[in-house]
């Protein structure tokens, strides 16, 4: 296998792996945790019938959404109405490309050992890339609201756009402080800096808080769910959507949460630090982030380097970000 083929195959494996982890492992559990949590707060059990503790509820929901009839109202703008769910889904999935999910891995295949950075594209504008695509995601919501030809949807779309525009600024500034300190816009460089110095969550605690609040608002979570506001707007921007298209909004929203959590974790904590150090960021939603896969793999027994390319299998690399200069991803320009 030549170097070029290997790079391409490794990139495809990484992309599929991240999407699989995010969409099939993290997303259903996130939905479950939110619904059970809301249930607990509201003094009701929440979904507890499908599987142990209702854990498979999301699977049942997805099957239901695929089976349902896809109703398109008569007076909608067909083009934009059908396009909107895709526009919401796409940026969330694309954002994962620049979030590092592990330290570089040495892979031996056919007697040749190669260095595989566990990030899909190590571009030198990583953080700007994330902001660019997350700011495009709002078009999906706004267009869904407009194309539905429904005043509740329209109000939801307007509210969503106003909210996202206003919180994007504070999120940008909070994130910028971490990158100014590290002196680079690459996320791996920020992680590396935090590893050699201090976690950003300690000196920039208020920045972290602002970041977290802004992420809640950007992803339309409670208490910032003005865009949906069931009490006033029926269901907000997706009132007229059903079945598969509604499912895409739903998945896009949660994929956005996972990507944003990945950004929060990598920019405010050196995920990948040596074991045994106290965790200053205990209140962080690190459980939701792609970095959780790394934590899991740390405890697995280290086998020989030919164990394969999956980060969840044994690794032989030391847990540092060293050597990244020699392992810049070929797609970095």
């Amino acid at each position, binding site marked *: 296998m030549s170097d070029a083929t290997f790079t391409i195959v490794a990139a495809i494996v990484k992309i599929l792996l991240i999407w699989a982890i995010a969409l099939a492992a993290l997303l259903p559990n996130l939905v479950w945790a939110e619904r059970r949590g809301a249930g607990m707060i509201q003094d009701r059990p929440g979904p507890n019938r499908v599987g142990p503790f209702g854990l498979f509820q999301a699977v049942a929901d997805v099957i239901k959404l695929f089976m349902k009839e896809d109703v398109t109202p008569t007076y909608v703008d067909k083009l934009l109405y059908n396009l909107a769910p895709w526009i919401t889904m796409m940026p969330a999935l694309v954002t994962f490309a620049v979030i590092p999910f592990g330290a570089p891995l040495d892979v031996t295949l056919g007697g040749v050992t190669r260095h595989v950075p566990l990030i899909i594209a190590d571009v030198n504008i990583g953080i700007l890339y994330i902001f*660019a695509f997350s700011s495009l995601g709002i078009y999906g919501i706004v267009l869904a609201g407009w194309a539905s030809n429904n005043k509740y949807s329209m109000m939801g779309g307007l509210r969503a756009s106003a909210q996202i525009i206003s919180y994007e600024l504070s999120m940008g500034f909070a994130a910028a402080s971490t990158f100014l300190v590290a002196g680079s816009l690459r996320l791996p460089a920020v992680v590396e800096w935090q590893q050699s110095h201090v976690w950003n969550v300690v000196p920039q605690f208020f920045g972290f808080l602002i970041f977290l609040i802004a992420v809640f608002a950007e992803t339309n979570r409670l208490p910032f769910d003005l865009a949906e506001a069931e009490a006033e707007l029926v269901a907000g921007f997706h009132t007229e959507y059903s079945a598969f298209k509604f499912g895409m909004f739903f998945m896009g929203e949660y994929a956005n949460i996972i990507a944003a959590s990945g950004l929060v974790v990598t920019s405010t904590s050196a995920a990948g630090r040596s074991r045994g150090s106290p965790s200053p960021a205990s209140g962080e939603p690190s459980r939701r982030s792609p970095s959780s896969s790394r934590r899991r793999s740390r405890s697995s027994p280290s086998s020989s380097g030919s164990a394969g390319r999956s980060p969840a299998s044994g690794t032989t690399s030391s847990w540092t970000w060293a050597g990244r200069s020699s392992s810049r991803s070929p797609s970095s320009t």
Partner: protein
Amino acid sequence: MSLELVVFAIASGLAIVSALAMVVVKTPVKSVISLVLTFFALAVLSILLSAPFIAALQVIVYAGAILVLFLFVVMLLNLTQEAEGHDERPIQKLLGLVTVVALGGLLLGVTLKAGAPPVPAAGGPIGNVTDEIPILGRLLFSDHLLAFEALSVLLLLAAVGALILSKRRFD
């Protein structure tokens, strides 16, 4: 045919088509969306010129911020009835044609007259650099400091002016 050429053809074609659609389409909301597509295609062209920073700024500032505000205003005023095309005077089309020919001729002339841009030698001040952003920052705050500050004052004036125009009466 290299991959670069293919990407260039797709991106530039998309830019031209969506820019045309922006002018031709009757619904204002669709015009805004076409403009977003145009900016996106232009960002891809910037990446082809190995200027990813410019590309990211293009998407963040234009596609992500300014056009969202456009869309917001268009939706808020609900300008869907513009399609009727009222108040059209014959001189409008004539003036438009004259402007298009003049501007197009100017652009074409300049493009034809200017040769290929000078390519900086590798290892020069800009060549062979992987991280362009520190260089950009250093240039902005040293060589072009005056222009940079003047621009920021201009932006401030624009913001203050908009505030005053929209809020005529002060208590």
